[in-house]
């Protein structure tokens, strides 16, 4: 017999299980699953440990760093100078100026890269340009060339143009070297967007440029933000090119300044300050990633179709 609503409301209160039973496929022990879990947790634990060590060491004295690597910091805190290492690194490594330079350079470069790569990727995937597939592959080849191999010819070329030891020159190099990857990333993204939206826009009377800016670009926002963040992280950490192309303190980026500070600080056994310097360079990107990780993952095409 089927129970009516009244019977169910009046009857004994039914208690749902605290945790719904998993599907039969998910039950039971699987060696592969166990191994996978172990590897994932090990990897996570290792990363968290390194991060913990870094943050803690930034507040320790050199002796503490070597004798009690995983203990909480105490030496400087007891002396009321908790942030002494950070202040030391900031003042002695020239981080103040380098920080501003890096923020501006990374921001301008990342935005420029995405501004150039997005229309290129759109044209390669959506406009039905003749030979688009070949061109996409040609762009992708650029990813296969390690930039270290072109550093010397690049330096000679830039020297001819008088663009070495010049932030604008570095900006050009950053944009040029990041384009292949970004274009490739975005072609995948644009390809995944439904065709009908473009067709609907065409029937609504939108020009290709308008379709790109008002329909496709907002839909590809997730992809564009991903591209922006990946480039920002990559450029923020970029060291080799800045070492090769910048040789004046006034132009140093954070990574370059840290490199210079490294030699100075280890000479003075100022390991606390050195680690603090590393923390200053690393942490902003970590924060950026934590804040924007969800934006990277969430797609925006939801509701476009069925």
């Amino acid at each position, binding site marked *: 017999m089927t129970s009516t609503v009244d019977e169910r409301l009046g009857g004994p209160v039914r208690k749902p299980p605290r945790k719904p039973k998993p599907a039969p496929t998910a039950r039971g022990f699987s060696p592969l699953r166990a191994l996978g879990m172990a590897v994932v947790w090990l990897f996570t634990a290792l990363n968290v440990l390194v991060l913990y060590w870094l943050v803690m060491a930034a507040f320790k004295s050199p002796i503490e760093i070597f004798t009690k690597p995983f203990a909480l910091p105490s030496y400087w805190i007891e002396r009321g100078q908790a942030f002494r290492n950070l202040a030391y690194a900031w003042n002695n490594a020239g981080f103040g100026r380098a920080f501003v330079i890096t923020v501006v350079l990374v921001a301008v470069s990342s935005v420029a890269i995405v501004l150039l790569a997005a229309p290129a990727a759109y044209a390669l995937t959506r406009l039905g340009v003749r030979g688009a597939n070949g061109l996409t592959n040609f762009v992708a080849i650029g990813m296969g060339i390690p930039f270290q191999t072109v550093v010397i010819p690049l330096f000679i070329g830039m020297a001819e143009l008088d663009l070495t030891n010049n932030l604008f020159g570095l900006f050009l190099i950053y944009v040029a070297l990041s384009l292949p990857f970004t274009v490739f990333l975005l072609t995948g993204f644009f390809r995944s967007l439904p065709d009908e939206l473009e*067709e609907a826009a*065409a*029937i*609504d009377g*939108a020009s290709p440029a308008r379709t790109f800016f008002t329909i496709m670009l*907002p839909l590809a926002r997730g992809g564009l933000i991903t591209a922006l963040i990946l480039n920002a992280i990559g450029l923020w950490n970029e060291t080799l090119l800045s070492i090769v192309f910048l040789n004046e303190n006034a132009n140093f980026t954070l990574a370059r300044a840290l490199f210079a500070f490294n030699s100075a600080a280890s000479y003075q056994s100022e390991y606390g300050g050195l680690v603090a310097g590393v923390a200053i360079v690393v942490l902003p990107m970590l924060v950026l990633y934590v804040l924007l990780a969800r934006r990277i993952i969430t797609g925006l095409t939801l*509701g476009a*179709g*069925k």
Partner: protein
Amino acid sequence: MATVSFAGTTRYYAGNPVPAVDGLDLEVADGEFLVLVGPSGCGKSTTLRMLAGLEGVDGGTIHIGERDVTDLPPKERDIAMVFQNYALYPHMTVGENIGFHLKIAKMAKSERESRVREAAALLGLTDYLDRKPAKLSGGQRQRVAMGRAIVRSPQVFCMDEPLSNLDAKLRVQTRTQIASLQRRLGVTTIYVTHDQVEAMTMGDRVAVLKDGLLQQCDTPIGLFGKPANLFVAGFIGSPAMNLIVGTVSGESAEVDGSAIPLTPAQRAALTSEAVVVGVRPEGWEIKAPGDGIPATVEVVEELGSDQYLYCSTSTSRVSVDGGAPEPIAVRAPGMSPWQRGEKLGLVPVPGAVHLFDAATGARLPD
């Protein structure tokens, strides 16, 4: 408002020597609701997309009214389209979706808003104007897609299977709504579907396509009553028409011992001795065994108002879609006491017989 005419319209796809649409000649009257129907791959969507300007035309022309639109881009054709998956802009609200064309056409904001509100009121969407498509149900999204078409007051509506993403009940409701809305607005409409029930219930006329070729274009009654060939006969109607192979002997066609008279004109039109006799499920008279074509009931489908008996016989039958020939379907009154395994005799009701040339598939003259 305008007529639409296809003249020898042909479309090839890259890498395929067989055209997807082959020399289509079709005239659609002003304000008419024309349905394009056919199995998948028959070229119905391609035809619609050529009209919309989303697909190139390799041969022939397309006219909307007096204008040759064959090579015009979509925006200059003055048409609106409803897509199968609606293609709503997910980052815009319902109101922005409906008003997007008017915005591009640089209509003043106040007029645009009043037109959008008018269209929304017509479709019962007034309360949803500020929502994003993701927050709407399937039926509501479908209505937004309709609204986007209506608000433009175009010369032609193109609809590409707009109901196929709805559940069965909503599809029947929306079917009626779209048909009545179209009659009220009087806009020439080309509607693509693979569902022959939709085609029959909605269209003023229905064009049946197969393999890129127009098979027949007629009113639903004409299509049902006088199918032009075997394909249309088998495609229109559910359950499908029973197509039985007979042989000509003297003045009549012989089917499993039963004779069906042929007129002199029919005999003259035959190209061989083989004839196909078509009888719809409702075209049978059920007699006692020994009378007419002997048959055995295999399956009884009870629908309440009707009952369908699927019977095995010794006749050879034609299958239109290439699959195994199905058993003979017979309609009986609902709640009839037929049981599986019972024997009966089948006699076609006079006037319910369709005759086709077995070799060419063409209908014989009446």
